[in-house]
């Protein structure tokens, strides 16, 4: 599957050039390098746009169907798409849910706690922090 990295200034023009390929999907990758917008055309081409700022041009004029995905990503990842305002971005990795961290998750407890044995638990519920030092250091933001 061909993959093309696109600069922010060329995002709209590149989509227009590929209009006939049809719209497939628009997703966001929240990786170690930051947020990256990934557009898949119906023909199978993938366009990637690294997001230096939390905004991107809307592709609604090229494919009206893309607006649904843009509205969803605006809310989930706090990205503004043209006239679509950025939402709270609650799904971003550096955002934890304040309400979920006001009380301690009951699943933190383990029968082996008394012995001081290391926990084998790897996963946490969405928005729950393993420790609050990430908030104090500014690495994670509570919303």
């Amino acid at each position: 599957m061909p993959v093309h990295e696109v600069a922010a200034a060329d995002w709209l023009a590149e989509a227009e050039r590929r209009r006939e390929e049809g719209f497939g999907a628009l997703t966001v990758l929240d990786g170690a390098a930051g947020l990256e917008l990934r557009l898949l055309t119906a023909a199978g081409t993938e366009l990637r746009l690294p997001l230096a700022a939390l905004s991107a041009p809307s592709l609604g004029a090229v494919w009206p169907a893309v607006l649904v995905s843009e509205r969803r990503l605006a809310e989930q990842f706090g990205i503004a798409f043209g006239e679509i305002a950025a939402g709270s971005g609650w799904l971003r990795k550096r955002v934890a849910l304040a309400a979920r961290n006001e009380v301690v998750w009951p699943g933190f407890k383990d029968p082996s706690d008394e012995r001081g044995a290391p926990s084998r638990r790897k996963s946490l519920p969405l928005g729950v922090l393993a420790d609050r030092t990430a908030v104090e250091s500014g690495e994670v933001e509570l919303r």
Partner: protein
Amino acid sequence: MIEQSGSPLRGVIALQAAACTSCMLCVRQCPTWCITLESHQEPDPNVPEGARTRLVNVLDEFEIDFARCMNCGICVDVCPFDALAWRATTDYDEPDRAGLVHDAEQLGGHW
């Protein structure tokens, strides 16, 4: 109304404490965080003589807050030892909020 449905009944969640191994699966899977479980580990008394000591989990306390429970039944489904089960009664309401937190003894009574 429940009696008329004829379908599997979701009345109250009951606990069979003897079957619970304190594996914490129900606690961690509960979407509303309404289950709390206290436990500790002890050497297994049933280990054959001369065998290496083995630790077993011992249940100290098990509570379900029925004010927060949304009757999804995930805890019943995930329990590997069927220590939790639905019982048809809905006769567990209380006049105050605190009364809806049922401890292991009350949950065992539903069994």
